[in-house]
């Protein structure tokens, strides 16, 4: 279980600090919703290691995560934009999910498998810049699959997508989360995304998280 207990943070000049507490279970999607500026991205940045909390704890199955820098956290990120390096091919982007010294033959094989799992067998050699928004997110999910870190952080990942693509990607996220047993945290202000995916839903308001729903 991913557990945050009284993770506290304040920007310079901010009188009231954020204090975040929540639990996220494996194989489930935990949604964090809230208005713009309520602190959703601040929370994600702390989970990913880009911001250091002033106090509190963050553990994964009892193991402390706060001491780890972003690159060593058991976390994968999927952002609204810039999840891919656009000048690289889709295949090279996916390959970044594997350790640096992986032999070429294994890279080719595993990248092809991962792309096939997200339904994009053909686009490996294509430059990421030429892909549609939905294809980019699926390629990023393929990379996440190869990294296979136990925590997946999703920061408004469906915001730029049309309705049909959105449903496809949602289904993919749900399937992968259940199959890989990931602790997926979805930050979104779109209620339909939250309703469609979340097993647990927290509301972020007044610098605090409140559990609103647990299925």
């Amino acid at each position, binding site marked *: 279980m991913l557990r945050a207990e009284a993770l506290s943070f304040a920007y310079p000049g901010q009188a009231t600090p954020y204090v975040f507490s929540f639990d996220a279970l494996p194989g489930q999607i935990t949604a964090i919703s809230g208005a713009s500026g309520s602190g959703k991205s601040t929370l994600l940045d702390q989970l990913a290691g880009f911001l250091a909390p002033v106090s509190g704890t963050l553990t994964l199955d009892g193991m402390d995560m706060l001491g780890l*820098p972003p*690159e060593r*956290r058991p976390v994968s990120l999927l952002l609204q934009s810039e999840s891919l390096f656009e000048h690289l091919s889709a295949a090279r982007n996916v390959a970044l999910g594997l350790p640096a010294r992986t032999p070429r033959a294994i890279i080719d094989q595993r990248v092809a498998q991962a792309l096939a799992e997200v339904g994009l067998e053909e686009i490996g050699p294509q430059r990421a810049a030429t892909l549609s928004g939905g294809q980019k997110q699926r390629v990023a999910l393929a990379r996440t699959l190869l990294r296979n870190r136990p925590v997946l952080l999703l920061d408004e990942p469906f915001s730029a997508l049309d309705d049909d693509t959105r449903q496809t990607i949602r289904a993919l996220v749900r399937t992968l989360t259940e199959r890989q047993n990931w602790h997926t945290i979805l930050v979104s202000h779109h209620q339909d995304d939250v309703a469609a995916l979340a097993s647990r839903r927290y509301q972020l308001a007044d610098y605090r998280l409140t559990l609103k729903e647990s299925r």
Partner: protein
Amino acid sequence: MTTLPQRPLRIAAAALLALSIAGLIAVVLYSIFATATGAASSASRLDIAHLVRMTTIQASLTTILSLLVGIALAWSLNRLRFPGRDLVVGLFSSAIVTPGMVVAFGLLTIWGRNGWINQAADVLTGHTIGNPAFGLSGILFAHVILDGAFAARILLARLDAIPQPRLKTGQSLALSARQRFAIIDWPAMAGTIPGLAAIIFLLAFTSFPIVLLLGGGPANQTLEVAIYAAVRQDFDLQGAVMLALTQIGVCSVVILGASALAPVPTSLGASIAPSWRDPFAARALQTVVLILCTLGFVLPLLTVLIGGFGAGIPPVVATASFWHATAASLVIGCVSALLTLALALILTLGRSATGNGAARTALGIPSYAYLAVPAVVLSLGFFLTVRNLGVAPAIAAPYVVILGNAMLSLPFAVATLGPPLDAIARSRGKLIRSLGLSGWRQFALVEYPLLGRDIGVALALAFCFSLGDLGVIALFGTQDFQTLPLLMFRALGAYRGNDAAAIAAILLVGTILAFVALPKLFERLAHVAR
């Protein structure tokens, strides 16, 4: 595509100005071409092929070395965080306006025959190391100091503008320092490098004061210096014209080649992820690079200040010629800076009012004429034109120097004001349109408050270029009409090193003060206007 309503007056004013500049350049070129008739016999005494070869070798080496230094320095500055970092970045930013003469003089003070290094070597070993500040090595060193710092500042802006989410993605993927450079940094810089290389090549190819001071003889002359020597020393006007035509031809080819490459993109705005530090080995390398580059840039300037503000100042400021030259420099600097700003605003406001690509190109090209017709060539053209009109060059000199300096600064002012004005047109165009703003109200309420600092930067660039210019004044200067750079050059020619040091120090302080103060001043003025 702009969302601004069409502003026919702005576009018409810009078109008229662009036509006038094009006409002026045409007249200058016509004077050069007309004088070229029958120039073949005179030109045979000049080895133009050798000059072109040497200038090209020097400019190519400068370009390669400056880009390597610029990339390494930008990479280091982007990564390292330390107290005074902003000051160091500001120092490298000032490279664009630091007078070449001052840097050349600083190098002579350190590496020259009687420089610090030789004095120390003599004391320690009884031998000296010769005179590495003269010749190709000195020219390259001086060029790389200025152009490397210039390249670093441009490339640092690209690295600082890498979107934060891209850095977060890279960091969470645990990219190594090498992967980070290859996958994130290099693509951010790569699009800028062809255009930057072309600018550095042109700056080195047309370099005048540095080559004049450090060239050490005809073997390392550039075409610019050869033109100056043909006019002022050999009185070989036709030879100078042949050289000028060669210079224009080569520069035009480089510009045409460069324009086919990717354009320099505008900044996306700073977004640095301070938490992503490189491994120790990479940080150690960055620290070494930063220390070496800072020493290389700062040391020559420090020697100028230390040497200049010593015993040399009182005798210099006691002469009438110093005060005449100072007054001339300030008046020429202020008037040409204001003229540059006015011309640049007319052109860029006109350009931002139209989304038509052809019209934008037509309005922009004349302002970049300097890149093909550099200082000494422009000056030669003006010289021939006023002579053909029957006007004594001495009478026309102040006006020509002001106009010449304004023309030299115009491309930099247009490049400074153009992108923000285009951005305002894109981001605020709908609002301006819906509120019915136009003309002076549009400028005073929207454009001026948002442009403030950029106006100060454009003014500072133009003032500093003019203050440090030797190229235009070199052909028009007389004993009664001289600026500080010309006074310094003449002091050096008369072996009055202390006088030259004092003037160099004053020039350097004046340049840095203007470069720092003017943008801040206009930023405040614009803030008041908000």
